[in-house]
């Protein structure tokens, strides 16, 4: 599957999911168990993405402490209820700075 095919199929697929949501009767998507699975899906996927971003390079475990420290500072900002933009800027600035000095 070429990169273009991936981009097109994934894009149309994601749009299709949105269209399903505004088109299906509420009773289908409103079932409590279905809703609970749907609300937990992003929790699991985002946790997995963070794990591979921080802890893996290809097929091996790999920890880049500059990035890890940057994201940790971002977590601190989240805990202090800072806005998303602040969280993000602190994370990349910390990573860049640490990479310069160490």
């Amino acid at each position, binding site marked *: 599957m070429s990169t273009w095919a991936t*981009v097109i199929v994934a894009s149309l697929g994601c749009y299709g999911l949105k269209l399903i949501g505004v088109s*299906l009767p509420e009773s289908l998507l409103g079932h*409590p168990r279905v809703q609970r*699975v749907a609300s*937990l*899906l992003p929790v699991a996927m985002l946790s*997995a993405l963070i794990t591979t*971003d921080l802890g893996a390079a290809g097929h091996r475990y790999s920890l880049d402490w500059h990035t890890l420290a940057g994201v940790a500072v971002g977590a601190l900002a989240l805990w202090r209820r800072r806005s998303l933009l602040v969280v*993000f800027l602190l994370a990349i600035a*910390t990573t860049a700075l640490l990479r310069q000095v160490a």
Partner: protein
Amino acid sequence: MPARISRPALRRGGAFAERAEVTRAAIGIGVYAAVFGVVFGAVAQAAGLGLLQAVALSAVMFTGASQFALVGILAAAGSPIAALAAALLLGVRNAFYGVPVSGIVRPRGLGRLLTAYLVIDETTAMAVAQADRATARYAFWITGGCLCGMWNLGTVAGALIGSSIDTAALGLDAAAPAIFLALLWPQLSRQRGVAVALGAVAVTLALVTVTPAGVPIIAAAGVAVAAGLWPGRAADSGGGP
């Protein structure tokens, strides 16, 4: 796209009663969408995608977390199927956002196609946070317009300058995990949220050395399905975004 208006804001209900306030909030969301758009464009470029591919993702897929996931898995030399599956699984939540949004906007005919296109974290959160339906409709369209325009402009800019900047030196490799963490943070308070997050981390770490890149992400979705179907107190039906 990351959710700027988080659950506390949703609960505040009629806090944004006036259109002027809604407009200001929408412009703020547009500004940060531009910044993230630039980052997405640059990250996509660094992952080996062309300008048109990055722009196609922002213009058609138009849902940030899926876009970052797809690009990240392709960059890690993961299989296209895994990248596709991750993008779609992350996009499932938009289908559920469609339920409250269509109740507010009540689109008809071709309007349904445009309404669906704009259903993402921020537009849903802004719409459902309004006290009355007229303001909610306004919030949906103005937020969607600002966000869509700025996200795409940012993506073009990022993809254009992406090749001339050193993403590692600027710390941009921390951008995607930081955004994912910010999206995850308010959702950890869901019933079983922390357990699902820890379970997903464990599954991912167990699989990452033995499966193709991207597969651990898909496997982690199984944790959410298991936890969601597991019988228990039905106190929290998960409701909405």
